[in-house]
């Protein structure tokens, strides 16, 4: 009985929710490509490389679509993207945009706006001074809204390790900005 259940599940994964299924693959792309792009960008600060990483990771996924079950596709993508530039490129400066202040808040005093601008410049600098893994964790959480557990899965480490990176990231960012 168990044997037939196993057979059925094998056949099912082969034909039904298969990554080779174009609809399934395209859904995975739509849900994850932006984060793969950001993930690589946070690490290396190079948009072109990040674009390439997305292409590369999804081509690999497509080529191995028979071997990767949909639930594992996500971590497969990050592993491929990560391995692509392992020890190959040097991190460049990460440039992030700041959301434009909404009009209601623009009646602030010029001094205040000046301070804000300075603060953001300091934050940018501090982010670039962070070790790559702390910066990636921090930005995946702040920009992409990823939970620690999700980041842990992407990076292939424990949730605790991610919390440690986050803690250290916050600590050094604050020290840098406040000039301690």
């Amino acid at each position: 009985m168990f044997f037939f259940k196993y057979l059925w599940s094998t056949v099912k994964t082969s034909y039904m929710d298969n990554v080779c299924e174009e609809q399934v693959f395209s859904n995975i792309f739509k849900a994850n490509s932006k984060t793969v792009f950001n993930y690589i960008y946070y690490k290396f600060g190079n948009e072109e490389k990040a674009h390439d990483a997305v292409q590369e990771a999804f081509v690999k996924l497509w080529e191995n679509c028979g071997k990767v079950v949909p639930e594992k596709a996500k971590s497969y993508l990050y592993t491929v993207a990560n391995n692509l530039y392992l020890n190959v490129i040097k991190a460049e400066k990460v440039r992030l945009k700041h959301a434009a202040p909404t009009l209601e808040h623009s009646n602030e005093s010029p001094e205040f706006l000046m301070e804000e601008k300075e603060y953001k410049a300091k934050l940018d600098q501090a982010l670039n001074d962070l070790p790559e893994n702390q910066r990636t964790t921090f930005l995946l959480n702040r920009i992409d809204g990823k939970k620690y557990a999700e980041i842990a899965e992407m990076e292939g480490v424990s949730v605790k390790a991610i919390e440690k990176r986050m803690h250290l990231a916050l600590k050094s960012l604050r020290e840098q900005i406040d000039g301690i």
Partner: protein
Amino acid sequence: MQENYLAKWLSGELSEEELSEFKKSEAYASYQKLKEVSSTLEAPDFDVDQAFQQLKDERIGNAPKVVALHPFKRFLRVAAAVAVLLTGSYFYVNSLDESVATQLAERSEIVLPDQSEIILNADSRISYSEKKWDEKRNVSLQGEAFFKVAKGKKFTVSTNQGTIAVLGTQFNVEARDNFFEVTCYEGLVSVMFNGNETKLPAGTSFVVIAGQLLESPKPNSVQPSWINNESSFERIPLEFVLDELERQFDIDVKTQNVDKNLLFTGTFSNTDLNMALKSISTPSRMNYQLEGDNVLFYAEKTP
């Protein structure tokens, strides 16, 4: 404050106490500001649709056929496994011996390939190899059965306790725990027991109870009584009589203050339980109580 409290604070996992303690620290305002400003950060633009189009046009469009093979390969693997399994089990099942078993209160008749007949009493089991029957007439038996053997090569019955060999005859074998009995009704039967061969001419029995060879009473019929739905005993300890009762009626027998070694001579019906209970209890001076599938025998004089 717990380990990595800054991370816990950011994800809202601090306890109320910890949170109020953290709010009092002088660094709190800086962290709060950091939290607010960092939430307005944005990554460079990324056009998902354009990237997908590029992927399809430049990369995937070139090699879809290679990919399409994978699921089929897996299907082949599964199919091969199924084929191997089915073939294997076909040969395995084919090589198995034929076997027939009866439950409690059940009987079964088997006709062997050479027209020899076996009648299987309750709670018994035989097995034999149908394929090799022409080479070797051999039947394994647990329990009790009556054999009418067609003339031919040597016919053997193997039991845990002894082996019976004949040429063509009618005989009964009962092989149960601590009980081994062979009765020959026609022809000549040879019994191997503990390495000794005993020849049983028609009308004699060979009885071993708890390893002891007993003086064999002569059957006065042409076939065992159970064929006619009766169980007959001649100087057999009560224990084995009650075991037979349990088998014939699929009931549970218990005793109280009863000497189960007492020898019993008599017959009970295999079809009428009340008659059978009376047939056993009266000559043994016992009373009985029947409740559902349970029977309790107790000595007459029990207060």
